[in-house]
């Protein structure tokens, strides 16, 4: 019975196995990035970047139809352009990162909508906006695995300057010039993971598997390593449970994954060991020292 519900879908159907491999890879790469986005108060930046990717994907779509590889390349180019331009403007002028990003992503989004409407609406494009995790072919799966590997490798490379840049940017500037390159590399990783997620979850929900697990992790750990581990674990759990839910009901898979993550988030807000609501209501007697 339990076997039928929880495991059989994956042993019986190849597309479910591929989908599971895809969400696990997405969780491994995206969740740590989400934790850093959250800690840098850039949670909505991911959302903005997802919009910024649209014109690149649209141009890819115009050039080659629904070819995920080409659309990914287009998305990467558009995302990098916006991320790097915004980063450079924020660092060389007085405009803050959020304002600078907003101007660039809105421009990019307007371009994207223009390109899409010139071509006319297309049902395939909907599929792109919302993704389809159940239709992973080999090349797409390989692209996702490659991007995740790249993310983990680069993150390891820039981890120390990135953490110091988050805590004490002035200090990093006085001991090293690695701050700006590390920040730009991080923005690039955000784009890579968005494009990664957008094949599976669509442009609109791609951020979900980055930000929701990070939010969940904040309620269970006070320590960066702990947060990253919890974020990855909860992203994987959401992915798996979402796929099962989608298989057993008629909920589409992308939204199912994000909805499971949202449910975990609600549980964490209520019962989390770090500043969870229930914990705040019943804090126990104060300590002696």
């Amino acid at each position, binding site marked *: 019975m339990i076997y039928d519900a929880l495991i059989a879908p994956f042993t019986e159907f190849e597309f479910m196995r591929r989908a599971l491999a895809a969400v696990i890879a997405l969780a491994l790469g995206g969740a740590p990035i989400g934790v850093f986005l959250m800690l840098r108060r850039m949670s909505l930046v991911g959302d903005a970047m997802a919009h910024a990717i649209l014109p690149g994907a649209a141009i890819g779509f115009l050039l080659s139809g629904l070819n995920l590889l080409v659309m990914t390349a287009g998305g990467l180019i558009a995302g990098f352009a916006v991320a790097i331009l915004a980063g450079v403007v924020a660092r060389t002028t007085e405009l803050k990162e959020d304002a600078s990003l907003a101007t660039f992503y809105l421009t990019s989004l307007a371009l994207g909508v223009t390109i899409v409407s010139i071509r006319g609406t297309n049902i395939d494009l909907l599929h792109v906006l919302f993704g389809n995790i159940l239709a992973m072919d080999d090349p797409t799966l390989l692209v996702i695995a490659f991007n995740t590997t790249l993310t983990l490798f680069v993150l390891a490379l820039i981890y120390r300057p990135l953490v110091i840049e988050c*805590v*004490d940017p002035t200090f990093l500037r*006085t*001991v090293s010039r690695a701050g700006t390159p590390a920040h730009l590399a991080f923005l690039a990783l955000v784009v890579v993971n968005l494009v990664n997620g957008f094949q599976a979850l669509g442009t609109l929900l791609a951020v979900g598997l980055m930000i929701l697990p990070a939010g969940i992790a904040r309620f269970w750990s006070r320590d960066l390593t702990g947060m990253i581990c919890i974020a990855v674990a909860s992203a994987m759990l959401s992915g798996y449970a979402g796929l099962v839910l989608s298989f057993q009901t008629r909920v589409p898979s992308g939204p199912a994954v994000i909805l499971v993550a949202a449910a975990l988030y609600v549980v964490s807000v209520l019962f989390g060991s770090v500043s969870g609501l229930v914990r705040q209501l019943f804090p126990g007697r104060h300590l002696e020292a």
Partner: protein
Amino acid sequence: MNAQLQFRDVTLGYDRHPAVHHLTGEVASGALLAIVGPNGAGKSTLFRGIVGILRPLSGSIDTGDLDIRDIAYLPQTADIDRSFPISVFDLVGTGLWRSTGFFGGMGTRARDSIAQALAAVGLNGFENRSIGTLSGGQMQRMLFARVLLQDARVIVLDEPFNAIDAKTSADLLELVRRWHAEKRTVLAALHDLDLVRDNFPETLLLARGPVAWGATSAVLTAENLQEARRMCEAFDEGAAACAVDDLPSQAA
């Protein structure tokens, strides 16, 4: 005594308005220099220039053979994200950047020196606390511990004893004396003139322009302090371009 830092007619400021105006002089290697002046006198700006965060509008600051990592800087209000989940131990450990850099591991020796630095500022037992739980004074002690680990030849402290209780500032002042004994060059912006008279042999009285620079007792006179106050209140939003550049240089 050779010069560690040389100011060559340096002007530092923001948006073309000078905050430090035509400063010339040199800080000898191993000096213990207090920088005194009213609010807005340009003390912090001068420090930002020294550590290279701010580029001079004109003139230059010559740091000789110093690498940026040879200068430890403690800003007036450290711009630290106190909600970031990092422990006191790890944050103080960032002071070892010079030896560990991007990837260097933290061996037993590194861990020992972090523990020693924490003990030196009286924060034993705080290793695993997250930085958000520290009080203002404990925070300052922690930042001193990091400066200690940076093992820098030049140490720049911007109003290090502000809003710090007497015991803590006495402890931290002890560290400053220790650095001086170790022949490091220490510059500190300060407001407590008695503290300066008692502990700092050399003082620069700054009021955008230099008012006086030399032995502390000769600099901190009533006339000089009054002059400093007068010079500081002369900010003019519509000021014309400075014409001093056309005058013969007072350097050398």
